[in-house]
């Protein structure tokens, strides 16, 4: 498994040096107005930050954009799939965001533009970005954590939650 260990390291380095990554702190200061916050329901065990990840203009069809959510240690990806999908955000309903850490053993997933899947080099798990991150085949006992996205009228894309536990942390928000 040596090869895979070095892969995760490589994946991390790439992510940490990648552009377009907002930190949790930077985003948290600029979110919702006070009255909206008052109406906010109580968080379910975990209070997720609303982080700006990118602007729709940063996205090109079927090209993954490296992001991180809910903090810089949790790499992920934003995708403009080019076709409307269930759970897709944006004017075309085709923008989705996922964790890119395999929920099986924590290896970095690679995007296959050919069939719009995220693939794990560790143990061959595959997740379908067009189907809510459903595991096509693999070892993980959960489908791929997907971001709850909101896009404001300026086209800024915010992540505001994750629908599964992220690998390597027992609380999605550390």
């Amino acid at each position, binding site marked *: 498994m040596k090869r*895979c260990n070095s892969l995760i390291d490589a994946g991390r380095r790439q992510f940490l040096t990648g552009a377009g990554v907002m930190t949790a702190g930077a985003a948290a200061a600029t979110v919702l107005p006070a009255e909206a916050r008052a109406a906010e329901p109580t968080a379910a065990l975990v209070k997720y930050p609303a982080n700006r990840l990118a602007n729709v203009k940063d996205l090109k069809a079927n090209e993954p954009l490296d992001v991180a959510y809910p903090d810089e240690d949790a790499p992920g990806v934003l995708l403009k799939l080019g076709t409307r999908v269930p759970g897709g955000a944006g004017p075309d309903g085709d923008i989705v965001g996922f964790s890119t850490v395999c929920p099986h053993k924590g290896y970095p997933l690679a995007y296959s533009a050919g069939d719009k899947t995220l693939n794990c080099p560790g143990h061959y798990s595959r997740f379908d970005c067009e189907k809510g991150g459903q595991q096509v085949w693999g070892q993980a006992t959960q489908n791929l954590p997907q971001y709850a996205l909101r896009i404001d009228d300026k086209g800024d894309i915010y992540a505001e939650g994750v629908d*599964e536990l992220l690998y390597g942390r027992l609380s999605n928000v550390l």
Partner: protein
Amino acid sequence: MAYKRQIGRLPIVPANAKVHNVVCHYCIVGCGYKAYSWDARYEGGTAPADNKFGVDLAEQQGADTPAWYAPSMYNLVRQDGRDVHIVIKPDQDCSVNSGLGSVRGARIAEMSYSRQRNTQLQRLTDPLVWRYGQLQPTSWDDALDLVARVTAAVIAEQGEDGLFVSAFDHGGAGGGYENTWGTGKLYFGAMKVKNIRIHNRPAYNSEVHGSRDMGVGELNNCYEDAQLADTIVAVGTNALETQTNYFLNHWVPNLRGTSLDKKKAEFGDEPVAQGRVVIVDPRRTVTVNACEVEAGKENVLHLALNSGTDLALFNAWFTYAAEKGWIDKAFIGASTKDFEKAVAANKVSIAEAAKITGLSEADIVKAITWIAEPKAGGARRRAMFAYEKGLIWGNDNYRTNQSLVNLALATGNIGRPGGGCVRMGGHQEGYSRPSDAHVGRPAAYVDKLLIEGKGGVHHIWGCDHYKTTLNAMEFKRVYKKRTDLVKDAMNAVPYGDRPAMVAAIMDAIRKGGLFSVDVDIVPTKVGEAAHVMLPAATSGEMNLTSMNGERRMRLTERYMDPPGAAMPDCLIAARIANHMQRVLGEMGKADIATKFSGFDWKTEEDAFMDGYHGHEKGGEFVTYDLLRAMGTNGFQEPATGVQDGKIVGTKRLFADGKFNKPDGKAVFAATQWRGLEAPGKQAEKDKYPFLINNGRANLVWQSAYLDVENEFVMDRWPYPFIEMNPKDMADLGLKNGDLVEVYNDNGSTQAMAYPTPTAKPKQAFMLFGYPTGVQGNVVSAGVNEFVIPNYKQTWGSIRKIADAPKSVQHLTFKSKEYIS
């Protein structure tokens, strides 16, 4: 949308959590896990001192960390009558899986009975009896009294042949030494039941008679051999899906070349290289893909032969190796018999084999070259032969099995490092029973006898014929009719009048009825026919011992309470024996009653000491205490002694060149090719357009009985998939996920169309043994000479039934193959 749990946080395992040894009870690999449990009111903290892992959990953990668990590894259960949190996660220190969790084993916790979190509420909690037209709860004594009275009455009228039994005979959740002994002592000790069958086949027989008759026990190597082999020969085994962590943790290092240091250390100056693999399978599986990814296509040879023609291929390899002199003459001379006879009898040329198998001559020669050509300097090439259901449930089981063992013996590959000729297996093993010699060979074809109206009472232990037998549609039709006769008779009598009830049941039995007693942990499909259901405990709700595919024996400790009144199977068997003794005494049959003595066990450990410890080879060295101390690594059977408080085991069988024959010599077998051997198969092939190949899938391998109540699994496979070539789908007007009917003269069933570009035209592959579409419905009753079913060679037609239903519409239908 795909199913999501919406869990963003899990309770932290505190530093003082209890730890129990767990071996996954689903498949034969037997991966090591640990169960951590602690009081429901508390949890640990993120500071290193506050959690079991001693690390800062406020930080992101890296890949392969032992300090993380998925939501599926967590639950809230009862332990000694109290609510506890439980985390069951893979054990880093187990040599089998080294911390890897499969998609099944990593759900052990989530697939436990929890009223607190509503998981597996399907579990049986009370004995159930047919009362007022439905199954109703009752006490153990009441249920067992009814079972004993009807069983004793049937035996009094029909003899012991009137008692039919279907029983698990494996390990893990498919038995375990305690439970096979409990049932074995009841049916083969107190009684001599002949009409008995095993959980997934219609008779009481070995699936590998062929290998055993040659003196070669089928689990003869160790998992490390897959790291040491020059070439792995995989026959009808899709190891990535059905031996997942054995494949990932032991095959892959060899294919990647990362086990080279291990090879050098073991073999000294002998030339060694990255491993190669020959895969014999009509279908391109995810295993083939993974092998190509790891070893490079140049080191993988997938032989997609015509279905059922393996025997001709192996005979050709054997002939070629003998002609070339690529054999181990010293070994053949010292440890075997009848080599020359086999060479003469099994002669098949490469050209003949190519014609029969549909493979190219060049590929057949390339494969045997990879397997047997001596290495530089003349060193023997080390080949490991691994086979499973493609061979075992394939054409001409007995001879095909033997022809592969012939090749392994001739090339000196049994009992040697980097070798072995092994079945890959399904469940763990855990067989300990009194002699079954009275069953005879061929064993009774029990399903057929039941269909013919034989027998009066049927005891079922952890079997579900409606789902996992051949000719299943006909079996179900007749079985329902026969058990309904008894139900109708019971409906006409007040339940509280026991003599009248037994008389009514017996009267119905005389008219062709059948009284059905089903012992299981869940309400099975065949349980729909039962008159009595008895709730059993499963692994972890009882202490349970088993061995895996390299004979590695471990103890899974009891870490939670069984649901309600459920009991270990061995104790249910003992209580049945107690009641039989009482009832037979009351009937004035003291001589028979006395045979039901020796069942005064109070615990599963009592059954273990009476059975495995008292009767099995090396069992005298094995106790619960010693096993507990040896954790998830245990020892490899047979035990040969105890040293420094540890059981000493056996790494490989036959390492001394002595085999299981009176003179210690393995016997080569004559294995002539005879076409499709089981009656009716050739005619079926000629009549129907599609091969309905069938087998297992990663997500539900040996766990489907619980998966039916697992949201994550049922979201992915609401119906069994049938992989089809896209052009075949287009010809039939099928879209992704449409429900199709698969049918032939044996019956019909349904599946969900899954487009698979790598599927050969007119060769479909359907998920086997699935509750929402039973593949066995279309498998003919044809078996081999020892009543081994031939599931794989099935032909049928396919037609559309319906558009993809709602539960299917959100599914992905992309290729299962990893893309690098």
